[in-house]
């Protein structure tokens, strides 16, 4: 579906992403995890066209999209949400989602109808007339999701849609994400909430200090020594192992 081929990006002296290659299969939910500052969001920026890589390529469905603008990439069927929610605050929920649905609907009426349909899918239909600025954090996360879905993507990049939500809210959003996948949209998500990663994903990629350090099924990843070290510090895996045997 999407493939990164040895992507690298430096900001001055900081190598934010170094030689990262990864692959997301169609029809899956794949997670990208890693400690803070690992380069996850930078990698999303590179994939979605908000940043151009210093080297490497991004391939979407067999097509080289490296260096294309975000709006062009969106038209090709891939869009993203933002970690820090960015609603069009002055507009209503309906108008917000309609900006996305206008991509494939020129007429105002059709775009609004499509927006209302998407709002039902993510559970926002009761709030269609509210200004986006009046939504709670959970509501704004849903709005990000709804706007992105309204563009009719085949691949959706979700940057921490669960961050800042309480456990109950998380449990409400999980089925929404699963429903998106079941409707045929491939999902790649950045997530810190491990419960969600374990629950949702078929495959996990782990990024640390700008490099991929592991990949595999969620259970394998949770036991992977290098992953434990990346999160808990050097030597931790060994100590944990010794503690377990003692």
């Amino acid at each position, binding site marked *: 579906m999407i493939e990164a081929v040895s992507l690298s990006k430096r900001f001055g002296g900081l190598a934010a992403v170094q030689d990262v290659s990864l692959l997301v299969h169609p029809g899956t939910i794949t997670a990208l995890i890693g400690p803070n500052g690992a380069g996850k969001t930078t990698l999303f920026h590179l994939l979605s066209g*908000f940043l151009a890589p210093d080297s490497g390529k991004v391939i979407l469905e067999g097509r080289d999209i490296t260096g294309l603008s*975000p709006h062009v990439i969106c038209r090709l069927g891939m869009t993203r*949400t933002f970690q820090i929610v960015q609603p*069009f*605050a002055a507009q209503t929920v309906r*108008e917000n989602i309609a900006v996305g649905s206008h991509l494939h609907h020129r007429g105002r009426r059709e775009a609004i109808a499509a927006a209302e349909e998407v709002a039902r899918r993510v559970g926002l239909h009761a709030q269609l007339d509210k200004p986006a600025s009046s939504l709670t954090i959970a509501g704004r996360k849903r709005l990000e999701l709804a706007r*992105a879905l309204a563009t009719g993507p085949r691949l959706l990049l979700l940057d921490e849609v669960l961050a800042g939500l309480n456990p109950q809210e998380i449990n409400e959003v999980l089925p929404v994400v699963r429903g998106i996948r079941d409707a045929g949209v491939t999902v790649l998500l950045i997530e810190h909430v491990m419960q969600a990663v374990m629950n949702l994903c078929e495959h996990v990629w782990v990024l640390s200090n700008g490099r991929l350090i592991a990949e595999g099924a969620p259970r394998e990843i949770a036991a992977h020594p290098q992953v434990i070290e990346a999160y808990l510090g050097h030597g931790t895996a060994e100590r944990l192992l010794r503690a377990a045997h003692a």
Partner: protein
Amino acid sequence: MRQLAAIAAFAVAVALLPGLTGSGVVLNIAIMTLYAALLGQAWNILAGFGGQFSFGHAVFFGTGAYAAAVLQARFGWNAWATLPAALALGAAVGAFIGTLSFRYGLRGSYFALVTLAFAEVFRILANNVQFTGAGVGLMVKLQPGAAHFQFADKAGYLHVILAFVVVGLLVSWWLKHSRYGAWLQAVRDNEDSAAALGVNVFAVKLQAIMLSGALTAAAGVFYVQYFQYIDPSLAYGPAVSVEALLGPIIGGLGTIWGPILGATVLHLLGEATRGLVSSLPGVNLVVYGALLVLMIMFLPRGIIGLVK
């Protein structure tokens, strides 16, 4: 649909004004109010709907005014024929400034400063080039008759400027009810989100500044026909730039009726203060300034914000 009906009602009501009063003073106030409303509508497209605050809309106004004056005085064009040329030139200047500023990602106060600088550059150019009559300015020949965009009575001018304002209203209505308008307002509220949703941010902003520039140029053409004279500081001076932004800010940014409401309040207030304290010239400017400060403090959404 309700808005379209309101626009039609507004057009009919203002068009009937000369039937109610023959007073040249009243009609002159109405004309100057509509003229300010037109400037405000044009500015509102770019700033109110698009979030790009220009502080130099005189650059488009002056270009429209000089296009009309030069084509009439130097090349003998019919006044009406200069209108499309002026609109095209206004849009072209918009495309030029827009390409330079938006290509390099200028936003907020930087964009405002660039537009201000362009207006000044154009003023200095007009002041120094013989072609535009330099500092002396240009006079348009007196040729009474509707065919020459000159009218014996104020009613004719009122109807022409009203037609322009109605076009401005329809453009604003279209921005509220179209895909382009939705994209423009999305760009205003958040450029990154808009881009992620497939909006070509650069193209949308460029089209907005061209549309705004063309409509501002129409105000310039009207000005030249009404006063039959233009010079560099009238055309490109900061007074026009300020007039363009005061109305929408006071009336309500990014709304259909805000510019008209703001222009009306300002002009009535200006006339009232001028009548009351005629011994203090310029006191209306003090009132404008105080009003602007009060509005931004207590009514950031403009007078329209009171209604909603």
